[in-house]
Every structure is written in structure tokens, then in C-alpha cells.
């Protein structure tokens, strides 16, 4: 049987990173959905809605990246 290729990282770090990304995906997905819905209701406000969406997504991503980096370092 051929050897399995392994990385030097522990699998717990991988699980942690996956969980963090699940949280980010859900959160940013919800933001994107609400933003698109808002634009559909009021196309005039598209610019402001888009700006607010990007800001909220960046804030969530900040927390996610924090979790990912900690998982990298600890894993």
C-alpha cells in the first residue's frame, strides 16, 4: 500500500480553522443575502447598501482571520 502524504500540522488546527470559516461563511452569506434583497427593493440605494455590506463583511473577516491565525500558531 502506498504511504499517505501528511502535513506537519495537527488535525485539531484544521478542525478549528474549518469551524471558524463556517462561522464566517454563514455570517457573510447572511449579509450578502440581505444586501441583495435590499438592493432589489430599492435600486436607488444600491451604492450605500453595497458600501455597508463591504464594511460588515470586512469586520466579520477580521474576527475570522484572527481565529485562523491563532489556529495556525497553536496547531
Amino acid at each position, binding site marked *: 500500500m*502506498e504511504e499517505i502524504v501528511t502535513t506537519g500540522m495537527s488535525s485539531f488546527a484544521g478542525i478549528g480553522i474549518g469551524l471558524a470559516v463556517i462561522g464566517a461563511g454563514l455570517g457573510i452569506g447572511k449579509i450578502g443575502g440581505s444586501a441583495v434583497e435590499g438592493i432589489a427593493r430599492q435600486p436607488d440605494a444600491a451604492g450605500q447598501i453595497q458600501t455597508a455590506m*463591504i464594511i460588515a463583511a470586512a469586520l466579520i473577516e477580521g474576527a475570522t482571520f484572527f481565529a485562523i491565525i491563532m489556529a495556525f500558531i497553536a496547531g
Partner: protein
Amino acid sequence: MNFDDKAAQAEAEADHADHVDDDAVKTSHDDHGHDHDDHSHDEHDHSHSEAGHDHTHDAHSADAHSVEKPDTMNGQLQVNMDHYLDMPHLMAHVQDSTFVETPAFMGLEHTDDDGHTHSGFGIPNIFGVTQPLIGTPEKPFLTGRLTKFVAIELVVAILMFVIFYWLGQKIKSGKKPKGKIWNALESMVVFIRDEVARPAIGKKDTDRFLPFILTTFFFVLGLNLFGMIPGFGSATGSIAVTGVLALFVFAVVVGSGIKKMGFVQFLKAQVPTMDLPPILKAILVPLIFVIEIFGMLVKHFVLAVRLFANMFAGHLVLAIFVAFIGVAAGTGLYYAVAPIAVLGSIAFSCLELFVAFLQAYIFAFLASLFIGSAQHAH
């Protein structure tokens, strides 16, 4: 044997004497993520592999045949992965260093203080630092030596001064903006003033804080963009740099709040006024006060961490993308993985460009938000 290599490959190998180091692993791996042009050159560099190969043999023949080539593809993959997807090695590409790495074809060589040789040029030790300022030589905490990130910060600061002094003179002359650079700069400055600072701080007080917010925005933007240049990195990828920037924001927020209201009143302003019976007030007000103070500290800390993590993680992922080329080297997978990795790293770099602007904007936006909330009591 199939490989295309550069002399830098041998350079990087000599750097990691404890890693497997042999002909089968020689690939086009070089700078992670900062060398797109070079990787596209690599596709055409097969013809140069002989010349490059001879050079590497001459320079590092001692390491050339230290390990046998593994039999199976998985064995070769494992060997490559241990060498290239080695976390300290990857992080060293994203973190601060005392030299700027250049592609091997430029032929520069540099030996750093530890005796390792790299392809690149070193940042001169202008203060002549031999002993760390804080910490021991084994575990230095603050060396005081001029490093790549500090040099980049100085370059960005000088560039900013030159560009905005020029812009200031143009504005002072009172003429209408003409030409691309003038219009672009002025539109960015006006954007920060009208869309970021004024809504958050209010029309009256903005002019006092506008220089600080503009400086923060353009400084962070400049540092982020320097990370797109091959060989250099983004200095905001270091928690020390972003920590100090957030510390300055904290100082401005608290300082301006105290100056406006006085120290005691500033503390009192953290807790919103509530109509409560005295017994509830005695319990809730200290509680809310502690939460608000803690919240203020955490908000500024997260400001630093957000910027740091975005830049660091972005460049680390880019490094991993490009490391995949090295991982697939010497196996049949290489011809599938290498083009995809090059295209993927180009696409990811476009995302990195967007993130550079976005994170600078977010930093300035949150800074103005915090300043605004400190100026107007709850």
C-alpha cells in the same frame, strides 16, 4: 530528471541544511507569492536549466546527493511537503527579515548575520547593532536593528511626504485639479473627508482630526501596497506595526476625549445616563463602566489584529499557493499543478490588492468612528 531551477533554489536549500536537499527537489520555488513574473518566466526557462544547474552544483556540491530520490510519487510528495510546506519556512517569508529577497536570475547574493546565504540584498545595519536592546541574543525582543519592514515604513513615509507636499502646494495655488494624479489624489482625500470622517465625527470637529485620519489611511494603504511588490512585504503584516497604529488611535481617542471633557467627566461619559432607582444604579453603573472600559480596550486591540491578520494571512496563503509548485516538483503532477498555481496566485494577488485598499479604508473608518464616539458623550 525533470526540473527547472534557479541558483536561488540552491540558496534556499543551503539555508535549510537540516531539510532534504537534493537534485530531485530542485524547482522553480523561490519567493513565495512575490514573484509572479518569475514564475511565468519559469515556464520558458527550461532551456536555462543546464546553466543554472551547473552553477548550483558548483556552489553547493556538498549537499547535492545527500538523500536518495524516493521511489513512489507519494514518497516524493512527502519529501517536498516537508521541505516547502514547513510552517517556520513559510512564515519567514511573510515576516520581517534583514534582507530583501530577489530572484536568482538577478545574481545578487547576501549572507546574513547568522551565516546563511540568500539571493537578495541585505538591509544595511546602519546603527551597527550587535546586541539586542531588549532581550538576549538567543531570544531577542527588541533588536534595534534596521529591518526590511522598518526600511519600508521609512520609504512610505518619505513618499507620502513628497506626494502630499506636492498636492498641498497644488491645492494652495487654488487652481482646479488637472491631470490624472492630481485628480486621483484629491478624489481620495475628499472621499476620506466627506464619506468617512465627516459622517462619523460631525462637521465641526472633523477638521481637527482630519490630518490624523488622512495620514493613517494613506500610511496603512502605502504599507499594504508595498506587500504587492515582489521581494518586499507588507509591514502591516507585523502585529508590532499594527499594534502601534492602534495605540496611536487609542491615544487620540482618549486624549481628545479627556481634553474636551476633562478626565473625570470622560470616565463618567462612558456610562449612559439612566433613570433608575438608586439601588439598581449602584449595581449597574460600576458594571457597565467596567464593561465599557474593557470594551474600549478590546475595540482598539481588535483594530490592530484585524489589519494584521488580514495582511499576514493573505500573504501566507499566497506563499502556500506558490509552495504547491515546489511540492509537486519532481513528480508527474508538476505539469498540472504549476500552471494552476501560477494562475491561482495571480488571481489571489488581485484579491490581495482589493483587501489592501479595503483594510486601509476600514482602519480609517473605525478610527474616525471611535474618535466620533469619544467626542460626543453617549
